C-alpha cells in the first residue's frame, strides 16, 4: 500500500512538473517519467500488458514524437505564458484535493461499475474473442492516423503553367 501511494505521488508530481516547466523539452521528459510510473502501477495491479503498452508506446513513442515536434518548432516557437496561471496553480490544486477527498468517497457508492466476479480465460481470449470489434476499431484508428499525417504533410505539386 505504501509503495502504491509513493508511485501515485510520483505520477502526480511528474505530471505537475510537466505543466510547470517552462522548457518544453523538460516538460516532455517529465511526462515520460510520469508514464513510467503509471506503467509500474499497471504492473502492480496485475495488468502487465497494459503496463508494457504504457511504457513502450506512451513513454517511448509519444515522447519521441513530442521531442521531434519541439525540435522542429524551437526557433521562434516560444510563447509567453500567463504568470498568474502558475502562481495560482498550487492554490487551486489544494482546493481540488480537499473537494476530491470529500466528494469521491460518496460518489463511488453511487456510480455503477463493472460487476464483481472472477474472470475466466486468459488475456488473449478476452482481447481476441470478447473484444474483437475493439481490434477492428483500433486498425481503423491507426489507418485514420496514418492517412491524416500523410495528408497534413502533403507537398504542393509544382504548377508548370506558373
Amino acid at each position, binding site marked *: 500500500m505504501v509503495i502504491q501511494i509513493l508511485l501515485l505521488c510520483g*505520477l502526480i508530481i511528474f505530471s505537475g512538473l510537466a*505543466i510547470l516547466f517552462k522548457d518544453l523539452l523538460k516538460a516532455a521528459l517529465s511526462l515520460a517519467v510520469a508514464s513510467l510510473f503509471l506503467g509500474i502501477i*499497471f504492473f502492480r495491479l496485475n495488468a502487465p500488458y497494459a503496463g508494457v503498452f504504457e511504457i513502450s508506446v506512451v513513454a517511448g513513442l509519444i515522447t519521441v514524437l513530442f521531442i521531434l*515536434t519541439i525540435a522542429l518548432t524551437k526557433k521562434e516557437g516560444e510563447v509567453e505564458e500567463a504568470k498568474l*496561471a502558475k502562481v495560482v496553480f498550487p492554490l487551486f490544486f489544494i482546493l481540488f484535493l480537499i473537494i476530491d477527498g470529500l466528494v469521491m468517497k460518496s460518489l463511488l457508492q453511487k456510480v455503477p461499475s463493472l460487476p464483481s466476479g472472477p474472470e475466466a480465460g486468459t*488475456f488473449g481470449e478476452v482481447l481476441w474473442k470478447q473484444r474483437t470489434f475493439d481490434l477492428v476499431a483500433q486498425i481503423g484508428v491507426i489507418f485514420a492516423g496514418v492517412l491524416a499525417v500523410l495528408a*497534413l504533410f502533403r507537398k504542393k505539386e509544382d504548377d508548370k503553367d506558373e
Partner: protein
Amino acid sequence: MSNLWFLYLFFSALLIFIGIYCLLTMRNLIKLFIAVEIISKGVSLAIVATGAVKNSVLLAQSLAITYIVVEVSLVATALALIINIYKKNKSLDVRLLSKLKG
C-alpha cells in the same frame, strides 16, 4: 478493496484536474497536448484500477490498450497539425488561431 478503489480514483481525478487546469490556462500548443496526455493518463489509470478492484482486470487491460492506441493516433495527428500551424504562423501561441478565417 473499496479503500484501494478510492485511492486510485482519487489520484486519477487529480491527474484529470491537472490536465484540465493546463488546458484552460496555458497558451503553448505543445503544452496543451501535454495536458491532453495527462488527462488520458488519469482516464487509463481509472479504467485499469477499476478493473483490478472489481476482478475484471483482463477486460480492463484490453480497454486500456485500445485507449492507448487511440491516444497515439490522436497525438500523431495533433502534432502534425501543430507543425503545420507553426509553419504558417511562426508561433505556437494558441491565441493566434482565433485570427483564422475560412
